[in-house]
């Protein structure tokens, strides 16, 4: 196994995992039927698309940028798939390819504007979000059901892991994407350059890293990832609609922060983000189990969690800067 970085870097991840376990424990104690494998697996089944999109978002945030267009791209993906199959009678393979190609192009354009035209990422991806949503409605104002047999098959297939515990194919897709991102962020030059840019972009340039190329590629990849998430979303909802995934980017960002990613860039782990999504999911599950609370309590709870994490992160950063514990060095 690779020589992992020293423990201090893993502390945020450990905290997040503990939080998840803690929440699961609380849920199990308070509610009957909570402590089951299926409950845990459903977290993945219901949030596969969010996991995928949050991975892309994490990568962008680590690089020091932000991508607000991911939710809109998911909606646009569903619309492209739905429309092309229902109205243009495209085969599913072509529709999927079209989505991936278009979303990548979309990400590329955003990346270009940010890198070479010096747009602020916030503004560029905000405009991207507007354009993507607008395009959805330009294609079709209402929902389009997805009735293609391939999609329905994938949507309904369940892989049984053990008695009473099954996952959908979308979960498998999510894990494949996760594996790809772990490889990218920890074992490729591209991924390490992203961390470097997030740490100090100017230094990265002076060190000779291909900063501009990496940035454009990262945004393109984010677009591509949103496309995958969009297709997974199709499997999940079996419909196309311009108002799908509204404000999903905020959930993705929240998941990244709860997972230990710093908004200032340079710090974060994709595995942490996955747990961030799971935590959001388990909060929702607890509230569903509770039964009486309306689902908008989830929003408040997640906001509270986000607040807690941000404040703690902030305190830790302040502590680190003031104490400046200098590590000892030997002279040989």
């Amino acid at each position, binding site marked *: 196994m690779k020589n992992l970085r020293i423990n201090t870097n893993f502390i945020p991840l450990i905290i997040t995992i503990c939080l998840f376990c803690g929440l699961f424990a609380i849920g199990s104690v308070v509610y009957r039927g909570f402590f089951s494998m299926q409950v845990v697996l459903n977290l993945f089944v219901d949030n596969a698309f969010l996991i995928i999109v949050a991975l892309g978002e994490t990568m962008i945030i680590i690089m020091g940028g932000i991508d607000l267009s991911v939710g809109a791209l998911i909606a646009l993906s569903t619309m492209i798939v739905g429309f092309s199959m229902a109205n243009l009678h495209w085969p599913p393979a072509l529709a999927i390819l079209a989505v991936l190609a278009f979303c990548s192009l979309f990400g590329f354009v955003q990346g270009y504007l940010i890198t070479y*035209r010096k747009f602020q990422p916030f503004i560029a991806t905000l*405009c991207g979000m507007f354009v993507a949503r607008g395009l959805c409605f*330009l294609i079709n104002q209402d929902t389009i059901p997805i009735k293609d047999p391939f999609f329905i098959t994938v949507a309904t297939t369940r892989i049984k892991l053990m008695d009473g515990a099954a996952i959908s194919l979308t979960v498998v897709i999510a894990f494949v994407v996760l594996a790809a991102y772990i490889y990218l962020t920890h074992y490729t030059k591209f991924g390490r350059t992203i961390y470097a840019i997030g740490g100090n972009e100017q230094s990265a340039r002076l060190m000779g890293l291909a900063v501009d190329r990496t940035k454009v590629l990262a945004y393109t990849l984010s677009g591509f990832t949103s496309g995958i998430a969009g297709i997974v979303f199709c499997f999940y909802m079996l419909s196309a609609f311009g108002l799908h995934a509204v404000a999903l980017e*905020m959930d993705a960002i929240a998941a990244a922060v709860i997972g230990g990613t710093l908004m200032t860039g340079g710090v974060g782990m994709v595995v942490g983000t996955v747990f961030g999504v799971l935590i959001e999911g388990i909060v929702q599950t607890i509230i569903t189990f509770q039964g009486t609370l*309306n689902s*908008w309590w989830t*929003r408040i709870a997640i906001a*509270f969690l986000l607040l807690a994490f*941000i404040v703690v992160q902030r305190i830790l950063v302040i502590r680190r800067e003031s104490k400046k514990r200098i590590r000892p060095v030997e002279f040989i």
Partner: protein
Amino acid sequence: MEDKNKLKKRLIDYQMFWPLFALTVLLAFNFFFIKDFFAIEIIDGHLYGSLIDILNRATPLMFMAIGMTLVIATGGIDISVGSVLAISGAVVSIMIGGDMVFLNGEQQYVSHYPIVLALLAAIAVSVVCGIWNGLLVAKLGIQAMVASLILLVAGRGIAQLITDGNVVTIYYKPFFYIGSGFLLGLPFSIFLVAAFLVLILWLVKKTAFGLFVEAIGSNVVSSRFTGLNVQRMVWACYAISGLCAGIAGLIVASEVKSADSNSAGMFIELDAILAVVLGGNSMAGGRFLVMGSVIGALIVQALTTTIYAIGVPPEVTMVVKALVVVAIYLIQSQAVKSKVKTQATPPTLKSKEAQA
């Protein structure tokens, strides 16, 4: 004297040009392509027409843009304003509502609480929201985007809490005056904005507020070392942003005569940011121009109206807004590039070295 002239030139010069230019282009386009766009007719002593319509509909956005300008000038941002708008609408609608009673043999609606109390409560809650954001950003030093993200996520939930998940309809007539009433022939909300604008401009130009905010936005460390109370100023800007969102919420609730906590103010924070950017303000903070943002809000609204008038589906507004912003940004960045190349006063060798 020289300096005073130079001062005037700088003020009128670069910053206001672009937003005014953009607005003029838009209006000119409308003039040529849309029948009767500039027509104003008087019905019942009230002025009606596309221009009036734009002004009227733009008022909530103008309020938002004013608050957003200050926050962005300090180098931050407030993406929670839409949620605060929803909360404000929720508070006021719950407190007013409208119970049907019989007075003098006629059906009438009275409000649950005195209207003044309801208005004050809504505004107070909004200001508290702004203070909350300010606490996170100014006192705890949390990144503005992240800090206001919390209220963005929680805010709608809180608004839903207040209205118990329902869409609350308001029946109390006097309340409608805010959003739908007329004064001197023009919609009342325009006067609200004008009055508020005057107040803010006074604050910015006639007190040290503007100078302090520009200093803090340009260089927060130097400002602190010069003795400015950075925390207090930044906090105040977020409070004002909350206030603006609250007033906007009142106008919207009054226009729509209800409070829909789910969709009220959806995406308006994005419109507000666009308005500020269109107004020539930099997202990085520092120098700011409130008037520019107000014009920016008009541009955004005019765009929307133009698109409706042409007969294009409403969702296209989103695409057009985005493309317009992209275009403006591209032009602005080109302008900045060429400005740097041909500097009016060539920097001395020493200053270049210092910069390099």
